[in-house]
């Protein structure tokens, strides 16, 4: 008898299922698709930062041969407001509030004709006073960006509520800050400035919209939230959401940029409706820089206190968010920021406030880490400052205040697993942090042009979904054919992060089939069950638990049938290597395929098809922002080593040592790739990337002037995994997608301070900024 050993793919280095198609150039992204009869669309954007539109004349554009439609707001009087804030129409009619504002759109035979037509649209503007400084936005008498609009949230503070440019406010409090201040032996206080950066997905934004003969709408879309978009589009278009189908071709990078609905998407649909033809709209790279979202820029004041014994006493955080002209997800990043302020370390007394104010600047969306890079930048710098004031080393000070497993924070987060102390110890130990830190500190005033330094930062982020929407769930449909081939139909979207491979691994683990016996279908809302979207590092956790649930139901059905035919108890059997085996001995009873056929082609006439919907056991926050919003929380510590050239201000990243509490490693190859990519994205945020917004104008909308990190600039990386085996996680895993980007800027700031004695609180650390800071510190 054949004996089949138990094999597992969990924790192995598994190549991504979609990699062969991508590596050979076969993958067709939305840019590569053409539908029969398709037209090409282009959008005319405002040439003014803030202006009244006196008139738009499209007659010359309409007359151009090859032009099928030219639309302005006047042509779609039924259009409705869109986006998180519902504070903009897709096509702007009487007023533009930022340079990206959409005024007219053309559908034509070719892109060239569409572009030529745009040049023939005559727009007469009457300039309004521009408001491009967020502090000025709240001054009395400032120009009002949206008249008659109440702030979206809060309004507890009369000063904030009373100003018409306030878009949103957030207030959170725990404990008694006055008591915390009174108990403090040391206090640090500072302003931090976080700049504009943008996602720079290598695949630019684009979509294809098509109506069928009965008015059903099909979108080929890069969205990260297809099921939410069905509702959004239905609302904007005034049609039944059930008549909208969203197909997601492979996506050329997401990072949060495709989480909201943006004006170009309904505009593309308007053009498809107007022409009766499929319409394809793809951005240029310049347009991608100008008209896709940014990371939320933040002005942040943080005050933190501690006792002489090294325990934290309080934090007070005030932030001012430049909301830009309209409200997208960027304005809501305080949801995450306040978690880091209140709960990364144990701190009894906290007060947090954010005001987001409208300006005529670009607006921010969600971007990997979602406010956490900004909050961590301030919190972790002040951990170093407090440690220094107390004469405690930075590691010991953090360990003294670190969260433990089992903790329920005053904000209501329950850390069922928490590897923060192991992350701190591992990253510090592996990097030789303490010795290097002491040596660099001693050498700050020693002669020498190049100074070396080391800095650390930790992070807390949701790792088990985030209950923001009514449901944070994901559905799975699983079917197995007569040849034991499994089709896993999941709502969870793949954006390159490797989720489809991880989901397939999890199903293999349950059903004992090889990886190549799985096909994942994850890109068509007419087929896939509901999922809230790919965001908040949730897909492995939520989609994974959903896939496991469906696979376990299938396994139960198979084992019941096998037990009937073998005349034994189900518990005596198992699935391994495509076979039904005796659980105790591994002895093969029959092949899975034969068992499935016997079930199908018999009097029972059954197919194995199962469904599962997984909803995590998390809770919505209450009105005071308290609640256990995630089913698990992820932790990490990163140690950054830098060299600072004091003659030029150039900061070189030498090495990053990371320790990540990921629950459990599922695909070692994939998780390493996520972390390495996140580290380099965080490096760009810290050192090189800077979207220059000058009086409302993006001055560097090109890779020539917007500096992504290139291959020779990457640091050495040493990544360690802390496996805390989360009880709710799929095979023990927690989310990791956003985590690796979060600590980098904070740790780099701490490393520069360790190298030079100069603390930098404004990003990015460009040579000019570092040089000036060093010179001014030298007097």
């Amino acid at each position, binding site marked *: 008898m054949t004996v089949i050993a138990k094999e597992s793919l969990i924790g192995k*280095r598994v*190549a*991504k299922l*979609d*990699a*062969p*198609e*991508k*590596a*050979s*150039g*076969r*993958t*067709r*992204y939305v*840019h*590569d698709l053409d539908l029969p009869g398709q037209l090409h669309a282009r959008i005319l954007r405002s040439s003014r930062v803030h202006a009244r539109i006196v008139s738009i004349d499209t007659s010359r554009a309409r007359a151009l041969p*090859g032009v099928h439609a030219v639309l302005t707001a006047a042509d779609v009087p039924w259009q409705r407001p869109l986006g998180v804030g519902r504070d903009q129409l897709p096509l702007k009619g009487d007023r533009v509030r930022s340079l990206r504002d959409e005024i007219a759109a053309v559908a034509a035979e070719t892109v*060239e*004709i569409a572009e030529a037509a745009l040049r023939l649209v005559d727009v007469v503007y009457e300039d309004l006073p521009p408001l491009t400084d967020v502090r000025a936005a709240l001054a009395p008498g400032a120009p009002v960006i949206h008249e008659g609009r109440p702030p979206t949230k809060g309004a507890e503070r009369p000063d904030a509520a009373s100003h018409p440019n306030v878009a949103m406010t957030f207030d959170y409090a725990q404990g008694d800050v006055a008591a915390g201040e009174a108990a403090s032996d040391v206090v640090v206080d500072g302003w931090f400035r976080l700049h504009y950066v943008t*996602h*720079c*997905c*290598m*695949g*630019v934004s684009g979509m294809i919209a098509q109506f069928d003969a009965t008015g059903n709408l099909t979108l080929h879309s890069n969205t990260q939230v297809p099921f939410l978009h069905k509702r959004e589009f239905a609302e904007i278009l005034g049609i039944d959401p059930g008549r909208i189908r969203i197909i997601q071709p*492979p*996506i*050329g*990078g*997401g*990072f949060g940029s495709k989480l909201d609905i943006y004006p170009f998407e309904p505009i593309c649909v308007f053009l498809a409706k107007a022409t009766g033809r499929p319409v394809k709209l793809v951005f*240029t*790279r310049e347009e991608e820089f100008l008209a896709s979202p940014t990371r939320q820029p933040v002005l942040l004041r943080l005050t933190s206190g501690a006792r002489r014994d090294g325990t934290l006493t309080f934090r007070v955080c005030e932030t001012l968010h430049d909301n830009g002209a309209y409200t997208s997800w960027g304005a809501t990043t305080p949801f995450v920021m306040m978690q880091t302020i209140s709960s990364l370390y144990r701190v009894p007394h906290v007060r947090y406030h954010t005001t987001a104010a409208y300006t005529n600047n670009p607006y921010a969306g969600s971007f990997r880490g979602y406010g956490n890079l900004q909050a961590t930048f301030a919190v972790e710098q002040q951990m170093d400052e407090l440690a220094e004031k107390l004469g405690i080393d930075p590691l010991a000070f953090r360990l003294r205040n670190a969260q433990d497993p089992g903790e329920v924070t005053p904000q209501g987060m329950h850390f069922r697993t928490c590897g923060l102390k192991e992350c701190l110890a591992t990253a510090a130990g592996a990097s030789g942090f303490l010795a290097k830190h002491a040596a660099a500190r001693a050498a700050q005033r020693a002669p020498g042009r190049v100074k070396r330094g080391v800095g650390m930062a930790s992070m807390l982020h949701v790792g088990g979904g985030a209950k923001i929407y009514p449901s944070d769930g994901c559905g799975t449909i699983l079917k197995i054919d007569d040849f034991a081939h499994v089709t896993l139909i999941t709502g969870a979207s793949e*954006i*390159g*992060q*490797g989720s489809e491979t991880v989901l397939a691994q999890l199903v293999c683990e349950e059903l004992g089939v090889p990886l190549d016996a799985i096909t994942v279908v994850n890109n068509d809302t007419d087929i896939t069950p509901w999922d809230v979207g790919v965001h908040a590092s949730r897909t492995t956790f939520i989609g994974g638990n959903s896939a496991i649930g469906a696979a376990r139901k299938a396994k139960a059905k198979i084992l019941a049938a096998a037990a009937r035919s073998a005349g034994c108890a189900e518990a005596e059997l198992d699935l391994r290597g495509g076979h039904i085996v005796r659980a105790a001995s591994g002895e093969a009873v029959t092949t899975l395929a034969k068992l499935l056929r016997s079930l199908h082609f018999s009097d029972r006439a059954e197919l194995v098809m199962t469904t599962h919907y997984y909803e995590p056991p998390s809770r919505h926050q209450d009105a005071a922002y308290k609640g256990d919003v995630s089913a698990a929380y992820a932790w990490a510590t990163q140690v950054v080593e830098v060299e600072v050239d004091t003659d030029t201000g150039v900061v070189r990243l030498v090495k990053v040592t990371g320790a990540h509490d990921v629950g459990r490693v599922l695909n070692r*190859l*994939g998780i*390493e*790739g996520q972390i*390495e*990519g*996140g*580290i*380099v*994205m965080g490096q760009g945020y810290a050192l090189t990337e800077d979207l220059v917004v000058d009086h409302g104008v993006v001055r560097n909308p*090109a*890779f*020539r002037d917007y500096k*992504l990190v*290139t*291959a*020779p600039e*990457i640091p050495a*990386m040493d990544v360690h995994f802390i496996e805390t085996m989360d009880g709710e996680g799929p095979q023990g895993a927690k989310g990791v997608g956003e985590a690796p980007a979060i600590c980098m800027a904070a740790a780099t700031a701490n490393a520069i301070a360790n190298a030079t004695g100069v603390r930098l609180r404004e990003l990015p650390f460009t040579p000019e900024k570092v040089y000036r800071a060093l010179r001014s510190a030298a007097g």
Partner: protein
Amino acid sequence: MSLTREIGFVLNGVRTRATVPVAMSALDMLREVVGLTGTKYACGEGECGACTIVVDGRSLCSCLLFAVDCDGRELTTIEGAERDPLGARLEQAFVDCGAVQCGFCTPGMVMQAQHWLQAHPGASRDAILRAIEGNLCRCTGYVKIVDAIERVAREAP
């Protein structure tokens, strides 16, 4: 509506003729006239490397090359990479080493690596980092891309 020219070239080993507008880039010709979409547009100004192809043995950004200048030349795109054993090994190494995430930069990376290794077999890790400095990747942090190229550089052909 614009002035066109008929040109001839060898594309992935196949003699090819195409009629192209004189202002068209080689990138647009490949994608829109010939219909090979493996070569990607990501910046259109030679800054990102996603559109890298090999022309007469040199790697070029096809967005900066006029289609008409392909006349009489020999082009290799990602679709032809695996005809060469080195290209096939590179594609496999990218898969095995986890060098592919969203995959949008991957064809350009493979073409650049193939071109580089042809001239520099056995290249060092540092040399490989330099060799792909004109190719941007937003997902991977480059580590696994360099792992893949290095594996091929170290293997006996």
